[in-house]
């Protein structure tokens, strides 16, 4: 069986509020799955539910074909790195790793051997004796990933591992995640930065307000949602309402339009040739006496796609 994680109709209620509705996901071994959604969408609740921290109200979760709620040992196959880091700040890196290794039932020698390997992998080989609280934000993130890996899980869940990190650090963590994935670990990673993880994920699950909007490969999702051109026009004096009113006279289905940074963005379906849209824009400029500064026609970026999904 290639399936490592299977969640079927998982629903979860917290403090009387439904946070997840019938979520389904199938993760194969070696996959790197991105869970994407805006803040409060239910990403963390979903990850914590499939890790066994929360018990779902409905639905089933199988980890390597074992029912997670019936078999506590199935949790051994899961490693989890939380958004806020989950280790003891007063303990050293080594002590943290040793402790978490032990409570996962790993013998002393194996833990000791594994500590060095993992620290090497996450790039913290020099700081074994340093107390966790004295580590920088990036190092703490690495330590948390190390803690999640100490018991050699098959599935590594990373909850917002790149949140609140500077771009350089974000890149390094992404690189680390890719390396871990290459080393055979199946990874579930959540983020609200679609751009950052889209490139590394084999699959994406988009969640909004507890509902799964879509689940598939990035290409499948892009194909599903990228039938839109985005036209960006910058004019002077910038009476964009007049431009839009002009275009709408010609039975053009405008999916979305907005003004950002003194630039008009118009989303239109790909059912017509780009030249048709461009001609229409130029005509509108002539009719409204707007002077063109710049114009661009593109397909949507992944972030824009994501926003489009959420908007729907």
């Amino acid at each position, binding site marked *: 069986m290639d399936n490592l994680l299977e969640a079927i109709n998982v629903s979860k209620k917290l403090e009387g509020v439904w946070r997840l509705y019938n979520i389904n996901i199938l993760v194969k071994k070696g996959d790197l799955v991105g869970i994407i959604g805006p803040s409060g969408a239910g990403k963390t609740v979903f990850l914590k539910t499939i890790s066994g*921290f929360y018990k779902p109200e409905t639905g089933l979760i199988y980890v390597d074909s074992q029912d997670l709620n019936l078999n506590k040992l199935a*949790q051994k196959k899961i490693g*989890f790195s*939380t958004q806020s880091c*989950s280790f003891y700040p*007063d303990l050293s890196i080594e002590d943290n790793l040793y402790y978490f290794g*032990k*409570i996962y039932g790993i013998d002393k020698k194996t833990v000791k051997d594994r500590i060095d390997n993992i620290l090497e992998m996450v790039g913290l080989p020099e700081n074994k004796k340093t107390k966790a609280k004295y580590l920088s934000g990036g190092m703490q993130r690495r330590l948390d990933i190390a803690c999640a890996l100490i018991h050699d899980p098959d599935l590594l869940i990373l909850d917002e591992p790149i949140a609140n990190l500077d771009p350089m650090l974000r890149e390094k963590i992404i690189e680390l995640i890719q390396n871990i994935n290459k080393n055979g670990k199946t990874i579930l990673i959540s983020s609200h930065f679609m751009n950052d993880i889209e490139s590394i994920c084999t699959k994406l699950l988009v969640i909004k307000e507890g509902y799964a909007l879509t689940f598939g490969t990035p290409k499948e999702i892009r194909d599903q949602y990228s039938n839109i051109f985005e036209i960006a026009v910058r004019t002077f004096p910038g009476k964009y309402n007049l431009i839009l009113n002009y275009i709408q006279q010609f039975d053009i289905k405008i999916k979305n339009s907005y003004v950002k940074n003194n630039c008009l963005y118009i989303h239109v379906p790909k059912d017509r040739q780009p030249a048709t849209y461009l001609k229409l824009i130029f005509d509108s400029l002539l009719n409204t006496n707007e002077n063109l500064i710049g114009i661009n026609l593109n397909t949507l970026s992944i972030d824009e796609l994501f926003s489009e999904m959420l908007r729907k």
Partner: protein
Amino acid sequence: MITKLLAIIVKNFKQLIGSKSSSLIIIFGPLFLILITGLALSNAGLRDINVGLYSQEDNQLNDILLDKIKENNFNVNILNTIEECKDSVKKGLNHICIEIKPRASELSRYDSRVGYEAIFYVDYSKVRLVWAVINAVRNVVDSESAKISKEIINKVSQNIELVSTTMEENKDTLNDIINTGEFVKENVHNLRNSIGDASAGKDILVPLKISINNQRSILNNLRNNINNTLIPIPGTSQIVYNMYTDINILESELNNLDTNLIKLESFLENKNLIDRDVKSSLLEIENKLDENLKKVNKAKSSLNRLEDELEGIKSVKAEDIIRPIPVSITPVTSQQAASVSNALTYLDYLFPSIIALIITFVSILLSTTLTMKERRSMANFRNTISPTSNYLFLIGLYIFSLILVSIQILILFIVGKIFFNLNITSNLFTVSLILFSFITLLIFSGFIFGYLFNSEETAIVGAVSLSILMFIASGLILPVETMPRIMGNIIKFNPFVLTETALRQVLIFDLPIQSIVTEGIILLVYMALFIALSYIIMKYSKKEI
């Protein structure tokens, strides 16, 4: 499972050691506690008690009390008015105010000091101190009071002695009176008896008269015979004549005799009348004498009885009158405890309470704080999703807390033994069992607070409230006996009271384990109850706070 448990305990210790202040407080906390408590309580009396003294006038009692109170190392403040004296107690300047007030007493003729009374004004809000102060000052006043009593009794005793001596002297006089009376009575009796019968002499006179009459008739017969016989006989005339002459002389003599007899009879009759009067008077005298003698004898026996009573009183000591029922207070502490030190200090007696108190606060607060810390810890999530049971974490935390509290108790015991020579080494096994049960139930009650509340503040407030509740409802502030019966009955089941009672019995009275079976069983029931409760509450508590 054991290795996981060990890892949890070791992790907790590493965290503790990681924080120097936390690890130091574990050792120095109890050390300071016992040192300060030990120094504060290692004496057996009151010190630095301020006594306010007010007297309306200068008097001897005032001066004596002043000296005596000073002798007892109390500070005496003389105050000018009674209001000032009372106010000083209210303001806490003095612990007690004594007013010396004149009073009317019959005994004041024996001792002028008896003409005063001492009134104590105390502040009952200082519940635990007030009785100690009252007792201490009362002891001073009582000892002086007893001294005065002794002096008065000695004076009364001297008077009794004097009465006794006077009575002894008077008893001799009385004896003389009785003896003289007896003598007079006897003589009167004899005299009365010596006076003849009223008919005395009659028995002699009547036969004498009869004899005379007989002789007279003999003479008549003789005369008749002469007449009849001699006269006819001639020549007998002379003889007859002579005979008649003799007979006539004889008759005349008889007549004289008869006359004299009549005179004698008359005389005798007169004498008898007088004798009867004398005899009657003598009888009266004798009766009066007898009556008087009886009275005097009665008086004498009363005197004797009085003398016996006085003799009995004389042998009674003044001490026995002052304290007719001698009271001696002997501590019921064990032989062993008593042998360690002749005078057990407050610390010895309070040690069980102090231990129970420290354990209560430390155990509940420690376990509550550790639980909250663990629940709020960043690592809580990772622990929860690990294949290790949550109950194992709870057991790990329990063992860790138990070790910490045990270390503290050990420090208290060692310091108590070495520095204050406390009797705490006897029945160590039993003491350990009691402490184990108590610490366990407290740690688990701390877990209950830790899991019941989601904020550290409320959990700690809850833990402190429980500790204070156990402390207040323990009899340490107010004796249980002073509370309403129903409250007293409830308080008996307070784990603090049960532990304190059991510890006192074992540590101070050196009683065997059998004597604390009831307390032990109740503590074990509590322990099981708290373990079960903490298990349930943990199961249903929020996973994330």
